[in-house]
């Protein structure tokens, strides 16, 4: 069974690569239209050092942005989940903020804090990814049935005890569901900023330099690297989920 779980995704990926190669080959597309998997190897070989440096840049900024998202999202979710007044006050603000396409915010932030690449990038990664977390925590807390509170409250337990012993664990499955979405969003945020920001670093900047030099295989190689990083982060979240909320397992991923 275990072997099968590793085997199937690998075969699927290989099939996908063969299909991609075949489509490019059959259509006789030139590199600038669509690079093929066989072009990627040389691109990786040629720039492998850059891939490591830039990949690391993108990765740590995304992770830091995500961590801030979790802190802020959980906090604001708690505030909204525990107080109806705060929920009614903050919800429209949050929804409105979330509705602004972040692509429009990126150049503004880039100008506001010009040169502060790390700060800019983390800020956007955070701004784009905290919303699902805040919503999941607030919904999880506000829909907690009264009886769950009452079994502890009737013993004289404090609100904090109820939060730690019942409300938080009960919300964890929804939290991890939201975190999976937030991981992808944070990646998008990081890359948006890295691409837009002049003289930036990270995979986004590498992508941009590929564009400037019409190095199409490089651009595709960056996309693949981003996908791989995304998969790695996603499965780290899945692993955390299984550790901390495995009791709610429903085979969702």
């Amino acid at each position, binding site marked *: 069974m275990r072997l099968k779980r590793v085997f199937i995704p690998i075969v699927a990926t290989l099939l996908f690569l063969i299909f991609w190669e075949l489509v490019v080959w059959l259509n006789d597309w030139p590199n600038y239209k669509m690079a093929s998997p066989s072009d990627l190897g040389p691109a990786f070989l040629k720039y492998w050092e850059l891939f490591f440096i830039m990949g690391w840049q993108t990765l740590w900024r995304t992770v830091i942005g995500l961590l801030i998202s979790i802190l802020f999202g959980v906090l604001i979710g708690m505030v909204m989940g525990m107080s109806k007044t705060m929920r009614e006050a903050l919800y429209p603000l949050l929804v409105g903020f979330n509705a602004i396409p972040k692509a429009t915010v990126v150049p503004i932030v880039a100008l506001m804090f010009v040169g502060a690449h790390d700060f800019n990038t983390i800020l956007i990664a955070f701004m784009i990814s905290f919303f699902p977390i805040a919503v999941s925590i607030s919904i999880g807390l506000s829909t907690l*049935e009264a*009886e*769950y509170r*009452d*079994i*502890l*409250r*009737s*013993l*004289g*337990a404090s609100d904090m*005890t109820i939060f730690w*012993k*019942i409300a938080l*664990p*009960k919300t*964890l499955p929804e939290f991890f569901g939201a975190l999976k979405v937030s991981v992808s969003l944070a990646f998008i945020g990081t890359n948006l900023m890295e691409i837009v920001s002049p003289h930036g670093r990270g995979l986004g900047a590498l992508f941009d330099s590929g564009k400037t030099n019409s190095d199409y295989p490089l651009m595709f190689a960056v996309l693949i690297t981003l996908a791989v990083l995304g998969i790695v982060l996603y499965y780290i979240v899945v692993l955390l989920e299984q550790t901390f*909320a495995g*009791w*709610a397992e429903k085979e969702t991923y």
Partner: protein
Amino acid sequence: MSLIKIRNVSHAFESDDGPIKVLKNLDLSVERDSLTAVVGPSGCGKSTLTRLISGLLKPDRGEIFLEGEKVVSPRSNVGMAFQNPVLLEWRTILDNIMLPLEIVAPKMPKKEKVGRAERLLSLVGLADFAGRRPSELSGGMRQRASLCRAIVHKPKVLIMDEPFGALDAFTREDLWQVLLDVKAEEPFTGLLITHDLRESIFLADQVAVLSGRPAMTQYLMDVEFSEKRNIELLFTAKSTAMLKELRKQIRIAQAS
């Protein structure tokens, strides 16, 4: 002296169309180690009454005493069980049952907590399920576990709000017996909300019928059987007469 004494309690909830008067001048007393069943039209304020007794709510007027002490806030001498067994899915059954001890007796050695929980589990016939998750248990078994959790900290008072309401008739009768067995081993003063009249006379020493909203105690019936309680007793002429009277009182309450 009654262990639970409810004196002249009135309570109302605020709503958009003005206050909803739920309880009005309600009086009720429950003797030590006895069980009182409370029946009444749905929505009349039975659950509100349980929340007032446990101190989760403060009455607008009137007083509630447990062992002569006025209830002003939740205290650990109360245990509660609901129709929903509210077991925590991330804990094993054993850990669920120990939950109240973590609040009430945080310093109790772990071994003692486990011993206490295991004793109760075997009392309700769940000894082999200590390590299972709640979702692995049937509805009746979950309600047994919920009962164990409600009394694990040896509360003076056990408040049950329609604990068997969601169970099928046969499981329900099994659980009636379980409740009596548990009460014989671990005495408590009980208040049982139910809308099953047979359940009320089978389990209780006193049945209180509440009137429609705003509720007050409309009728009190003492239930005494000379024999040890068993299901057969429900089919005697005496029980039939009691049920008839209770049904009549419920009709009156519904009309009020």
